């Protein structure tokens, strides 16, 4: 349970290179290309398939992401070029936080329900030697600092917070019971979604912390004493924040990284989006550095989201800051254990204190 959150939590913008130096053995492009040609030919029953522009986007400890185009010549003579992404587990090293099959099925479900996600094309087989799937590649921008400053997004910036709210409502209304998603994490032992998350992170904190953190002790205590009475239980994205959303000049294009999806309180996603670290310095705009909470909430409600109870969403924002603080402790472990000498993993350990400061203020509000 603890490892579920370890590796995929870093802001795409800043930490994309985080694990590039890991010694994980992996296929190189020359080895991978013919395997992909065979797989796609089998999957599409095509006459001929060409794989071009194959390159590694991120080589993480928990998974790898490759970008490529497939030129497919169908049996009826029709040709098409598909822009694609391959997501696979590494050949060695720690297993991924969520298995690829479940992630693919979640993508299929939310895609079918009209959520903005890359089209899931093919669930992998054993031909690469590791679990994998292939999905559509969506072009656009995820890096917050560019989204904040680049003139080509000035129009989109006017409505980013509203669009984030609207798109999130659609996720929370996915009729998850209509899909076969066994294995989707859900509250255990009759716990409420809030209690489930608290218990999970108490355990992670107890395992990971190498020094006492008074602010976290106070925050856990606060959360236990302020657990919301009423909570819905729906499909929660689990990592809905800047860095995991692709924008174009017109606005939100696609929502990525479903590895932390689970059944939980919908307001968990709203609180997480407002964690201070996702503002990347744009502190006066609490919703991911792009908008005001009220605009985000209103758009969410108007698009069919659940009623935004102010006390409950505040609870989840406090939880979100605590969660990120504990994840900082977790992310620095490979450095402290001597498994990874990255200066970035070293630096993230002391970012924990940023969330402590935020927690102390939020608990008093």
């Amino acid at each position, binding site marked *: 349970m603890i490892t579920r959150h370890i590796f995929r939590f870093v802001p795409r913008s*800043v930490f*994309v*290179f985080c694990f*590039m130096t890991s010694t994980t053995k992996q296929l190189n492009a020359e080895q991978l290309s013919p395997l992909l040609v065979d797989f796609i030919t089998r999957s599409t029953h095509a006459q001929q398939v060409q794989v071009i522009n194959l390159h590694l986007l991120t080589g993480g400890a928990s998974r790898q992401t490759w970008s490529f185009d497939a030129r497919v010549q169908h049996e009826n003579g029709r040709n098409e070029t598909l822009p694609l992404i391959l997501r696979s587990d590494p050949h060695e090293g720690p297993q991924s936080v969520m298995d690829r099959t479940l992630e693919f099925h979640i993508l299929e479900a939310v895609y079918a329900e009209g959520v903005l996600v890359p089209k899931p094309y093919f669930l992998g087989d054993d031909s690469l030697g590791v679990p994998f799937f292939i999905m559509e590649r969506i072009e656009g921008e995820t890096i917050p600092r560019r989204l904040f400053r680049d003139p080509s997004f000035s129009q989109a910036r006017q409505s980013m917070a509203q669009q984030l709210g609207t798109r999130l409502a659609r996720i929370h209304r996915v009729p998850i019971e209509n899909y076969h998603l066994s294995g989707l994490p859900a509250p255990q032992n009759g716990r409420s979604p809030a209690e489930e998350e608290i218990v999970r992170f108490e355990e992670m904190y107890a395992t990971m912390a190498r*020094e*006492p*953190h*008074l*602010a976290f*002790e*106070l925050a856990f*205590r606060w959360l236990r*004493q302020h657990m919301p009475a009423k909570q819905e239980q729906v499909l929660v994205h689990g990592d809905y924040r800047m860095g995991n959303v692709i924008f174009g000049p017109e606005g939100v294009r696609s929502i990525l990284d479903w590895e932390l999806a689970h059944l939980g309180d919908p307001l968990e996603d709203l609180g997480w989006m407002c964690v201070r670290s996702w503002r990347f310095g744009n*502190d*006066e*705009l*609490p919703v991911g550095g792009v908008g*005001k*909470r*009220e605009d985000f909430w209103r758009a969410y409600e108007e698009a069919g989201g659940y009623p935004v109870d102010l006390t409950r969403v505040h609870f989840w924002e406090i939880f979100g800051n605590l969660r990120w603080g504990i994840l900082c402790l977790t992310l620095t472990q490979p450095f402290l254990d001597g498994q990874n000498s*990255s*200066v*970035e993993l*070293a*630096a993230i350990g*002391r*970012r924990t*204190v*940023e969330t*402590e*400061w*935020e927690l*102390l*203020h939020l608990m008093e509000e």
Partner: protein
Amino acid sequence: MQDRPTVMEYLQAVTHFLDEEAVPNLTGSRQFYGRVADNVLRAVMREIEHEEEYLFAEWERLNQLLPAMERPASQSALRAAIQQRTQELCQRIRRGDADTGSYREQVLVHVRESVREKLLVNNPQWLKRPVSS
């Protein structure tokens, strides 16, 4: 006793090199890592400058919250003792001692100050917390 340059002067030389020569000539992930390394060194410099002052202040505050003790003489013993006493304070918080009342207020003052001292070393910019909506 070492000769000049002092530790601080050495660190200044290295951060100057990173800032003026290395980082501008790096690209992509290397440039990013170069900036991270530079930030780490700057935190180290701030820690060297303030460590004793902050440790002494933290010890005095703990003496207000827990049975008073004499401050250990060496800095490493002081650090170990602070960590141990902070564990003790954590247990008190878990027991509910700091849930309400004046003890809670005292604990909050201490925690705020300790977190502020950590931020003054690691990310002083973060202390500025705009009133946001």
